[in-house]
Every structure is written in C-alpha cells, then in structure tokens.
C-alpha cells in the first residue's frame, strides 16, 4: 500500500475514487474494530476519534469499515457518514458557512428547491380543512395492534437508557 507515501492531494483524489464503491466515514469516538459484528468477537484493531474510514457494509447496529490497513466491524453509532472530521471542525467549515444559520430567511438553493423556512411558518394561517383531514386519518389502538401483528412485531422489554453523566460532545453548532 504505497498510498501512505503519496501526497495529501493525491490521497484525497484516491479517496474520492474509492468512494464510488465505499462510502467515506469519520470515527466519532475512540473505538475497537471487531472481526465479526458482535462485541464478543475478536478485536482486530483500534481506531482513534476523528479517524477516516471507508464504510464497506452494514449489518444491524454494526458497520464494516476499512481503517488504514485494518478491516473490521465497528458500532454504527461510533461513525458518521461523510468525510470532514468529527462534527466540530467539519460541520463548522462546511455547514456553518453554507447553511442559512446566520440568516435563516435567506435561501441557499443548491438543490434547486426552496426549503421550508421560518418565514413560511410565521406567515402561516390556520388551516381548519387540513387539520380535519389529519384528524380523520387517526387509527385506533386495536387497528395499530392488528397492523403490528401482521408483520410479527411484538412488544420487547427494553430498559430506558441512562442520561449521560459527562458533558455532551462540544458542538460549535450551538455556539456560533
């Protein structure tokens, strides 16, 4: 793998071409790679927060990724899709400048479509007809249970998740 020897620009080009079949991702916290999509399987490598990976496959709560020379399975929630580092840096550079955060009324129509904005919501007039339509769509608990039963969905016992103790990951999103 002489990839490691070529300059950054060429590396970026290389990554771009690879993304045609493997999506780029960024590791959100220090994690282990496992040989199988299960935490009981063998640990094959460790990855640092901020590391770039290629996402190769997805299975349940696991992603198969390649990080440098290692390939293995990592928890889905430990990786964000897309290059550009963990939220802080990447998000500020890319999104902070590009979204309409500083002026939500301004529309950046990159997709060629005008998105819903605050002004639309502020100007909105109560629509009784649409509300009546929505309320008429309601289903009963019995209908919902029958619907779930048709595809074999059954109630599972899952405990509440604990509130995280430590501070939330710092987000430049909030402060700028």
């Amino acid at each position, binding site marked *: 793998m002489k990839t490691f020897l070529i300059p950054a620009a060429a590396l970026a080009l290389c990554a771009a071409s690879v993304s045609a079949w493997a999506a780029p991702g960024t590791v*959100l916290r220090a994690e282990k790679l496992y040989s199988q999509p299960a935490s009981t399987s063998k640990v094959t490598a460790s990855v640092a927060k901020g590391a770039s990976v290629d996402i190769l496959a997805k299975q349940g709560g696991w992603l198969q990724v390649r990080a440098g020379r290692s390939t293995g399975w990592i*928890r889905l929630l430990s990786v964000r899709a897309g290059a550009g580092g963990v939220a802080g840096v990447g*998000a500020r550079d890319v999104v902070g400048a590009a979204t*309409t955060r500083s002026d939500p009324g301004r529309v950046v129509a990159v997709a060629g479509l005008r*998105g819903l*904005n605050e002004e639309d919501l502020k100007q909105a007039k109560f629509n009784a007809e649409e509300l009546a339509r929505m309320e008429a769509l309601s289903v009963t608990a019995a209908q919902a249970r029958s619907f779930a039963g048709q595809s074999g969905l059954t109630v599972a016992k899952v405990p509440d998740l604990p509130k995280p103790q430590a501070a939330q990951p710092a987000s430049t999103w909030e402060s700028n």
Partner: protein
Amino acid sequence: MKLKLMILAVSLVSFAGGAAGGFDFGKLLEDRVKEELNKDKPTQPAPVPPTDQAPAEAQGAASPPPAKQKIDARQLGLTLLTGYSPEEETRIGRQIAGDLLGAVPLVRDDKLQNYVNLVGSWVALQSGRKDITWHFGVLDTEDINAFAAPGGYVFLTKGLYRRLNNEAELAGVLAHEIAHVTQKHHLKVLKESSLIGALGQAASKKAKDSDPVVQNLIGNGAEIMARKLDKNAEFEADRVGIVLAARSGYEPWGLPAVLQDMAGLPAKDSRTSLLYTTHPHPADRLAALGEAVNGRLDSVRGKDVASRFYRIK
C-alpha cells in the same frame, strides 16, 4: 430576527437552569399575571376543562387560598403557573398543527397517510401516554424535517420520507417525535415564553375556526416549530426514541441510520436548512446517542419490516 430567537432561547435556558434564582422572578411574574387576570375577569368567560386534577382541586377547597389561585389562573385558559391538562395540551397542539398545515398541506395519498398512522400509533402505544389521541401526517414538501406538537400531533415531510428505506427507520423518526410529546419539550418552551407573552399585548390574529384563546396565548403556533429546543431535549428525544422503537419490536438502528444518512448530505442542501437551525448536527446526535447506547442494545433483536414499507410514487 434569528438573533431575537436566540436571545429568547438563551433566556429560557437560564430561566430553567437557575431554579432557585428563577423562583423570585417567577413569583413576580405570577403576581403581574394575577393582576392581569383579575382585570379581565368579567369580560373573559373561562373554559374550565374537566381534568383528572378535579378531585385534587375539590379537596383543596378546604384550604381556600391555594385553590383560589389555581382557579384564577385557569379562568383565562392560562394554566401557565399550574401545568396543562391533557385537554389543554390537545387544544394547544391543535392550534399549532393547524397553523403548520397552513404553511404546508398534507400529501394527497391516503394509503401513505394511513400507513404512517398505523406505524406511529403502534410505536406511540409503547410510550405509556394514553390520555391523548395520536395523529400523524406526511407534509407535502421536499424539505427534510419532522415536527411534533403537544397533544400528539406528529409530522414528517415527504422529503424525509423519501429517504427512508424500511419501516424501522420510519418508526425511529416517529419515535423521536413521539418522545418530544411525551417529554413535553415544546410545552415547556411554550409555558415559559407565553408567560412572558401574556404580560404583553394579546392581539388576536383572526383566522377561521382557529382557537382565539390559544392563539392569543401562543401567537402563531407554527412559529414554535422553527424554534430551537435545548439541544439536550433533542438528545433526550433520540435516547427515548431509539428505546421506543425497540420496544415496539423494530430493530433499534432505524433512527441512527436516518441520522447517518442526514450526516452524509451535502451541507449546502436547502432542504435541510430549517432542520439545521433547530437541531444539533446529526453527527453530534450520533455521538451523544452512541455514548448513551454503547453496548446496551446489543441483545435486542428487532425487525426492519422492509417488505411492506410503503413507497411514495
């Protein structure tokens, strides 16, 4: 304008944060509100909704002063100082939902709407809130977003729906919104902000069939959908939502998969600009959820129900 909203958000956070310091201030406002209430009392016939709190109030009749206070606040439909009954919550939610639907109508596809109501109602059944009727709707816009109003009015946009791959992902999105309702996130914001609003002008925006009392109270209800909740409220809705979906028999990875997808969208996409003004970045949400989940859902075996997922034509 954005600045104003942010100042409001900051003041709300500090309001909620400084419980001890906020108390005196709250008392001050309470006194002012009572003045206002007494002034308007003869002209404003009051809806006193029957609630399950009624026995408590009847009991309180033995000790007149606190009971009197409570009734005073209710007489204008201003239960700002006492908390909302399910009926009041629904009334507020209806107003917000009707206002939002004034900005964006529903997709004209009854099969789609019925499907979303079935999935949403099934997930909501596991939430433990049985005192409200749940309503779900897909909004006819390519914008990528989802909304929840108090009282169980839940929306997602067609733009978001199109990106979903299976029923577990839909359940995950709806579960996040259902969690906003069960945790009363918007109601808390309204309670704080309308308390301030109640002291100011109460100009009525006239609209056919809209609820003037509630409209006075909350201004344009749809606007609150553009208001940012505390980021911890969003993280909490993710935590509660992922568990709700799992309890409903779905694989828990629906909501994370949707967040993954959104994290990979180009940042300049106008379809997500409102989403990004009201929510933390999806990557931050994934990281926070990852900390909370870690290995806790490893043993959960749910279904993704891809086969019957309804595709928009």
